[in-house]
């Protein structure tokens, strides 16, 4: 009830400021499962070295959208996808693009920390590199040690594990496991990091560590953060996109979206007026 909606501003579905290059450009993206459409005609820019948060009710298509951004969606049997996604102006769905190499440039961190539990911390960090064949050709041990240290440092985990790199990944706490997964993603030296509800299994302290880490990572990487936690989007992102039934309702600088959304549906969702 309390405040009337702010008057409609012009649509803000491309929120990139003029000075920041667009890293990922989503153009008229459709995605679904079999005959069921999930993402509809979605157009969105992700500016370079910014954090874009994606919010929206459960089932609105957030995960499907981000999984289209590194071609993981198509791995599901029956998955459909149309439209285009441009990474540095090149369509990732073009025929000459190797999805495996693409996923090295666009890394992903999932909701539940999923390290290989019996594999050592060190090998967990290297797992992504091994899977993509990047370690073939016999790199020297010191170089590999350097990769491990750098990835763990960037994931803000190095100080906590440097004395037990041989311990099993499963021996870490949930929050540490999630940072290990971030280290695994970073070891591949991606340009974009997709994070799908990376804190939903973590306690508030572990969550704060990840959010703190996101602030640091954004100096190097372009980040897309899916979250069902609006406060997290408000705290951690530069831009926020609101999705509803697979459609982009509004994308705006985070501060504006949370103080003065331009669409009534965004206002209702973020103030907790559901149906």
């Amino acid at each position, binding site marked *: *009830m*309390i*405040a*009337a*909606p*702010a*008057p409609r501003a012009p649509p803000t579905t491309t929120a990139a400021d003029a000075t920041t290059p667009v890293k990922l450009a989503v153009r008229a993206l459709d995605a679904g499962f079999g005959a069921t459409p999930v993402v509809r005609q979605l157009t969105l820019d992700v500016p370079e070295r910014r954090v874009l948060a994606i919010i929206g009710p459960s089932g609105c298509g957030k995960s499907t959208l981000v999984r289209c951004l590194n071609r993981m969606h198509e791995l599901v049997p029956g998955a459909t996808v149309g439209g285009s996604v441009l990474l540095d102006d090149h369509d990732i769905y073009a025929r000459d693009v190797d999805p495996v190499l693409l996923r090295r440039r666009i890394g992903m961190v999932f909701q539940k920390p999923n390290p290989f539990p019996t594999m050592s911390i060190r090998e967990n960090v290297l797992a992504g590199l091994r899977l993509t064949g990047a370690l073939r050709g016999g790199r020297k041990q010191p170089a590999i040690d350097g990769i491990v240290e750098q990835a763990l440092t960037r994931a803000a985990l190095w100080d906590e594990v440097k004395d037990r790199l041989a311990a099993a990944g499963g021996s870490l706490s949930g929050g540490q496991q999630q940072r290990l997964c971030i280290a695994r993603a970073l070891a591949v030296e991606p340009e974009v990091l997709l994070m799908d509800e990376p804190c939903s299994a973590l306690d508030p302290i572990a969550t704060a560590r990840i959010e703190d880490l996101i602030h640091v990572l954004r100096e190097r990487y372009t980040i897309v953060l899916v979250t069902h936690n*609006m*406060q997290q989007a*408000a705290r951690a992102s530069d831009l926020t996109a609101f999705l509803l039934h697979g459609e982009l309702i509004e994308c705006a600088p985070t501060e504006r979206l*949370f*103080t*003065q*959304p331009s669409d009534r549906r*965004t*206002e*209702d969702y*973020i*103030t*907790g*007026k*559901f*149906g």
Partner: protein
Amino acid sequence: MPRHTDREYESELRALNDRLLKMAGRVEEMVAQAARALAERDAELARTTILLDETVNTDEVEIDEACQSILARRQPLAGDLRFIACALKMVTDLERIGDIAVNLCERAIELAREAALSPIAGLGQMAALVQEMLKDVMDAFNARAADRARAVVRRDDLVDELYHGVLRELLARMSQDASALQRGIHTLAVAKFLERLGDHATNLAEEVVFLVEGKDIRHAGKRGGPPA
């Protein structure tokens, strides 16, 4: 308009809205009584009006507490956030208006002791105008009507104009008639207080525009306009 799914939250916001309206009603009443005490030289009315300020002070504290509780427990966003930010400012202006009504009553008591000064034309007009502004701005708040709030802002220029007229007339009289000095000084203070009431009504109106539109219209032009 859709309601908050959490009905307790919805009722907290409604209660806060009602409290602000109630507090505003009280200070409007105080200003009306102060104006009457001045016009009718009624020291008794002035004294009973001063007592009302206690309740207004309690209102201020309680509304502040309600806002803080909502901020801490609900983390309001968008229109709800603007409503809380607006309530925190409005409550300060309303409390100041109560104080000014007390100041007016104190002068009314002093003036009632002295022989009546022949009426100053602009003074009654000022009192009527600021009361209208107060009423209109709270109606605008209740209706979330930014255009009506903007109309209140515009009327403040008239208050200032009247104030300067009153000032000139009082100074002229005081320079001609030394026996009018004491009464003149009290009346000058009254004019100044009325002018300040206009300023507070203007603040309230700016707060209502912010609440409704998310636009800060304070100091327009002086800062190169609000950010787009």
